[in-house]
């Protein structure tokens, strides 16, 4: 018996909300980053679930793409965070606010 699709979607939604709250409330750049990854994986889960439901591999392929993009994003993002840390010995995103008028 297959697990109903609704369970997967609920899990995906919960993970996504956790990620969103993490992004919006945390001040530490690394934690925000991890939260973003959580959001991405929530979406991947939904994609794979739908893929299985419809017996269509497109969803899985899309999930792979999203992982590759996420990996690339991690490389760039972590590099930025490391650079910021080296400069100011802190990764608090509220301190980094020069880019405004």
């Amino acid at each position, binding site marked *: 018996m297959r697990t109903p699709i609704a369970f997967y979607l609920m899990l995906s939604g919960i993970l996504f909300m956790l990620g969103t709250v993490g992004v*919006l409330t945390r001040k530490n750049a690394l934690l925000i980053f991890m939260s973003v990854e959580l959001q991405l994986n929530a979406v991947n889960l939904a994609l794979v679930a739908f893929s299985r439901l419809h017996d269509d591999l497109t969803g899985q392929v899309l999930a792979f793409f999203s992982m590759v993009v996420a990996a690339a994003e991690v490389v760039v993002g972590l590099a930025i965070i490391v650079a910021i840390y080296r400069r100011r010995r802190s990764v608090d995103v509220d301190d980094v606010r020069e880019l405004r008028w």
Partner: protein
Amino acid sequence: MVSQPNAALWVIPALPLATAVVNLFWGRRLGRWAGWVASASVIVSFAVSLAVVSQLVAKPADDRLFLQHLFDWISVGRFVVGMDLRVDSVSATMILVITGIGALIHVYAIGYMAGDPRYGRFFSYMNLFVFFMLMLVLGANYLVLYLGWEGVGLCSYLLIGFWSEVPANAEAAKKAFITTRIGDTLMLIGLALIVSRFGTLDFEVVFGTAGTVLTKDAATAIALLLFAGAIGKSAQVPLHVWLPDAMAGPTPVSALIHAATMVTAGVYLVVRSHVLFELSGVALTVVLVVGVVTAVYAATCAIAQQDIKRVLAYSTISQLGFMFMAAGMRAYGVAMFFLVAHAFYKALLFLGAGSVIHGMHDEQDLRQMGGLRRLMPITFVAFAVGALAQAGIPPLVGFFAKDAVLEVAQHTGREVVYVLGGFAAFLSAFYLGRMVYLTFFGEPRSDRARQAHEAPPVMWAPLVILAFGVATAEWLNLTPEGRLTGFLESITGVSPAGHGLAVVELAVVATTISIVALALTWWIYGSGRVDWRGFRERLEPWPRAALNGWYVDRAYDTVVIQPAKAGAWITAYVVDARIIDGAVNAIGGGVKLLADGGRLLQTGFVRSYALAVFLGAVAILVYVGVRS
């Protein structure tokens, strides 16, 4: 006519071009040799021209044509313009004049320009001029002619302003270039008309089919546009104002470009295109009127000039008027004969004047001269030969040339032209006599005149050769049917004949006019019995007006230049600065205001951006959900 290929034609213009390049890049290293290199190339070019022309003369009269196709210059669809050279009797005459007299002037310039810091550059420009002038007369279609036409204009500009350290010289160069530009532009429109009617610019096709292709009105339009170019280049009224100022250039330049060759390009153009002018008829009348007006007008100006070169400049304008007079009466052969004769004696007069200026240490004012015949005997004799030739004393060449023009006028029943032409001839003998007596006779009127010295041999040798040429040039046309005009007939047609006073009577009248004028000048300026300065003052304001060319320049300044400047001021400081810049600045300012407002949205907090992204995503989802 069957065209004959001749592989040697390209050599004639190529030689001066090659040495122009050599002198441009290595002129400084060549030092004093630059002048000899330049002269040698023109002399060799003259020799080649002689060889080509002697081949041409050896052929039967109706078969005298050499063509050479160098390469396709422009090829667009069916419109093809070749770099084609052509020698027929008219261009043969022209290339001999250009290279022959040009060579003498080059040699003369070796002495005249000695010690100039840009000696090599000068000869480079001179050679380049000879190249373009040869292209002008050798071209077998209007585009090659136009290439030469613009090229000689460029060289004229470069050489008038050669001593550009003096702002007045640079001004004169600009004036010459811009004034002739007016005519050139109209001429270019004429060429465009020819292309639109004939689909080609080739002389052979255009003149061969003009009778069937062109309506009378189209022929008039084309002929008048071409003549506008000729007016500019040959300094005819109303575009004559540049030539007197062009005397700012070194004297060999004045002799070569502004007397012997370039300014006659307009006459060449009219003679070359005479088929179109005859189709129109009206255009010929215009040519005649412009010629007569110019001949008389410029002669009156020449009388009052104080600068020896400006006398000659106005004299050149007047003589060019005579050539157009002849062309306007369909006597194209006579016009060409006049052109050749004028090239001889006007080059001689200019070189003589240059020798005087050189000997007087750059003094050009007639009032400062006097008594130079004892100090500069060779220059004096040569100059006198030139002056007598132009004044029309038989048996010198100028007499035959001018007499031929007046004879055509009288014999074709144009009494007004005959009388005005005779009057202009009287004036020309008068200003020449005045110039000769003021320069060479009487007592020296300044220290410079007392310390003047004869020119070096490299300068007086060309003078002597030219004087000899002037003295013998009447041989060119001395036979009853006219040796030169007969040679030209295959292209120009026979000069119109008619009935009127006998040739001998006309000759007596013309000679009398010249002798009376010379005697009158001797009495006023030579005999010492008349106080000519006081005489001049009593005649004021007429001499002053004539000195200033009857204020044509001032009229142009008021009517054309000042309004143009005012218009330019308005476009620059009102239209451009206020309206155009205003619109651009307003757009920029508006965007800036918008951006100033927009950047207040930026907080710099990463998390507020994240929240905005999140809310945006929610909003889109809600919108999509509500819609479906």
